[in-house]
C-alpha cells in the first residue's frame, strides 16, 4: 500500500466533497441562469456554495468567482487587474518563486509590451520586502506574491508587502493555492486565487476573489456568467463539492494541521541525522504545516523518486530530470540551493505517523544504494 505524500500536487477528494458532488450531480445540473424550478434550485446551490467559500475566506460572497482551475484564476486575476489599470501604467512586480501560472502570465504581459520586475528571495525562499519597496514605481499596475511557496513551503511576508502596496495604492494579488484550507487567509490583499483540488475538492474548480473597490476588467471576450467575470457554463456540482470540502477540511485542519506539522518536524530532523550530505531547504518554522523539501547530494532526483515509489511512497521532486523540461526548479535555482537529488514531501489530511516513520527508516538505505551505483566514494 503506497503512502501518498504529494498533497501539494493534489489532495485526495475529501469524503464531504465526494458526498456533496454526488448529490449535486442529481440536483444541481440545470442552467443556473434560467427561471424554472430546477434552474432556480441550481442557482440556489451555487449561491449557497459561494457564501460558504466566502465565509471560510473571510470575504463577501459577491467578491468570490469560481473559475475552472487555480491556474485560470491566476491568469484572469492578473491580466484583468493589469488591463483595468493600464492607464496608470504597465509595470508588474512578481516574486522569483511564484507558481508557473503567475510567471507565465507575467511573460504574456511582457510580450504584450508590459514591464516586469522580479523580486529575489533569500536562501530560505522568502522574498525580500525591501526589494518589493524598491521595485514599486509610479507606473506599477499590480504586485503578485504567493501566500506560501509550493515547492519548499516557506510562508511569505504577505502582510508586510500588502502594507507597502496599500501605501503605494497598488493592488496586490495573492496566490493562496498552497495555504487555503490549511492556514488562515492573510489580510490586506486586493485579489486572491485558490484551487479546490488542493483542499480535497474536485479538480476543475478554482477561486478568484476580487475585493470591492479593486479595479478589474476581463481580458477575455464578454460573457454573462459569474458576474461577467468568468466565461462559460458554471460547474455547479463541482463548486458545491468544493465548498463542502473546504468547510470540512478547514475545520479538520485545526487539529490535523499541528499533527502534520509535528510529523514534518520529524522528517526535518530525522533525514539529516541519518543521511550524510543532505540539505533540508525552506524555512524551518515559518512554513506550511504539511510540507518539507530536501536535497540529497550526488543522487539523481528521478532515480530517487523511482526508488521511493518502489518502496511505497508517492513524493514529488524539483530536480531537472523529473520536470517536463531539462531545467531544474526555478524555485530552488532562485534560492541558490542544491537542485539535484531533490524530494518534496507534502502530507495529506490524515497522513499516518507510521508511514512517516517508515519513510525516515527506509530513505538512508535507498540514498546509499543510489550513491554507490553512481560511483560515489566521497565520505
Amino acid at each position, binding site marked *: 500500500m503506497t503512502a501518498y505524500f504529494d498533497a501539494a500536487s493534489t489532495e485526495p477528494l475529501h469524503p464531504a466533497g465526494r458526498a456533496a458532488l454526488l448529490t449535486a450531480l442529481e440536483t444541481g445540473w440545470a442552467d443556473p441562469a434560467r427561471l424554472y424550478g430546477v434552474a432556480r434550485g441550481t442557482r440556489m446551490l451555487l449561491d449557497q456554495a459561494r457564501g460558504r467559500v466566502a465565509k471560510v475566506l473571510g470575504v463577501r460572497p459577491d467578491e468570490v468567482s469560481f473559475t475552472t482551475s487555480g491556474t485560470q484564476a491566476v491568469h484572469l486575476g492578473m491580466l484583468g487587474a493589469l488591463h483595468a489599470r493600464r492607464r496608470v501604467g504597465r509595470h508588474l512586480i512578481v516574486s*522569483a518563486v511564484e507558481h*508557473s501560472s503567475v*510567471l*507565465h502570465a507575467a*511573460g504574456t504581459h511582457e510580450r504584450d509590451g508590459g514591464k*516586469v520586475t*522580479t523580486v*529575489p528571495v533569500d536562501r530560505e525562499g522568502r522574498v525580500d520586502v525591501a526589494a518589493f519597496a524598491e521595485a514599486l514605481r509610479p507606473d506599477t499596475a499590480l504586485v503578485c506574491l504567493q501566500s506560501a511557496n509550493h515547492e519548499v513551503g516557506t510562508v511569505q511576508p504577505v502582510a508586510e508587502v500588502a502594507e507597502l502596496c496599500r501605501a503605494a495604492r497598488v493592488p496586490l494579488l495573492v496566490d493562496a493555492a498552497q495555504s487555503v484550507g490549511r492556514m488562515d487567509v492573510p489580510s490586506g490583499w486586493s485579489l486572491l486565487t485558490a484551487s479546490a483540488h488542493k483542499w480535497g475538492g474536485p479538480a476543475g474548480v478554482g477561486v478568484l476573489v476580487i475585493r470591492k473597490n479593486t479595479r478589474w476588467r476581463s481580458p477575455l471576450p464578454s460573457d454573462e456568467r459569474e458576474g461577467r467575470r468568468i466565461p462559460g457554463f458554471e460547474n455547479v456540482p463541482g463548486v458545491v463539492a468544493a465548498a463542502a470540502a473546504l468547510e470540512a477540511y478547514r475545520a479538520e485542519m485545526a487539529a490535523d494541521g499541528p499533527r502534520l506539522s509535528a510529523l514534518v518536524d520529524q522528517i526535518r530532523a530525522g533525514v539529516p541525522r541519518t543521511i550524510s*550530505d543532505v*540539505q533540508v531547504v525552506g524555512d524551518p518554522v515559518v512554513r506550511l504545516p504539511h510540507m518539507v523539501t530536501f536535497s540529497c*547530494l*550526488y*543522487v*539523481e532526483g528521478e532515480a530517487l523518486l523511482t526508488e521511493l515509489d518502489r518502496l511505497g511512497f508517492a513524493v514529488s521532486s524539483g*530536480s*531537472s*530530470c523529473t*520536470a*517536463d*523540461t*531539462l*531545467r*531544474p526548479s*526555478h524555485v*530552488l*535555482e*532562485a534560492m*541558490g*540551493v*542544491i*537542485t*539535484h*537529488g531533490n524530494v518534496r514531501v507534502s502530507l495529506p489530511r490524515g497522513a499516518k505517523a507510521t508511514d512517516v516513520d517508515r519513510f525516515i527508516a527506509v530513505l538512508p538505505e535507498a540514498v546509499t544504494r543510489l550513491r554507490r551505483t*553512481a*560511483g*560515489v*566514494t*566521497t565520505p
Partner: protein
Amino acid sequence: MRFRSRAKTGSRDGADGAAQPPVPDPSQPPPTLVIDALGRKCPIPIIMLAERLREVPVGDVIAVLADDVAARTDIPAWCRMKSQDFVREETLPHGGWGFHIRRTY
C-alpha cells in the same frame, strides 16, 4: 519552464557576457586540474568534482567544465555546503561554463 530573467545571486564573474574565449585572468591562479563534465547531467559534474578535489593540494584551484544548466546553481551551492571556496564562473566559447573552485581543506 523558462523563468530565467531574474538576476542571480553569488559571484558570476563573466557569466552573462556573450560567448567569448575564456581569457586567462592574470589576477586569478590557473586551475591545477580541469575536469571535463561537458555533456554530463547533474549530479554527475558534482560527483566528479567531489571525487577529484582530493587530487589538488589545499589552496589550489580545480575547474569543472559543464553544460548542464543545473550546475550553475549546484556547484556554488555545493561549495557553500562543503565550505569550499567558489572562485568564479566563466562562459566557454563553445557553450557551457567553467567553474573554478579553490580547495580549502
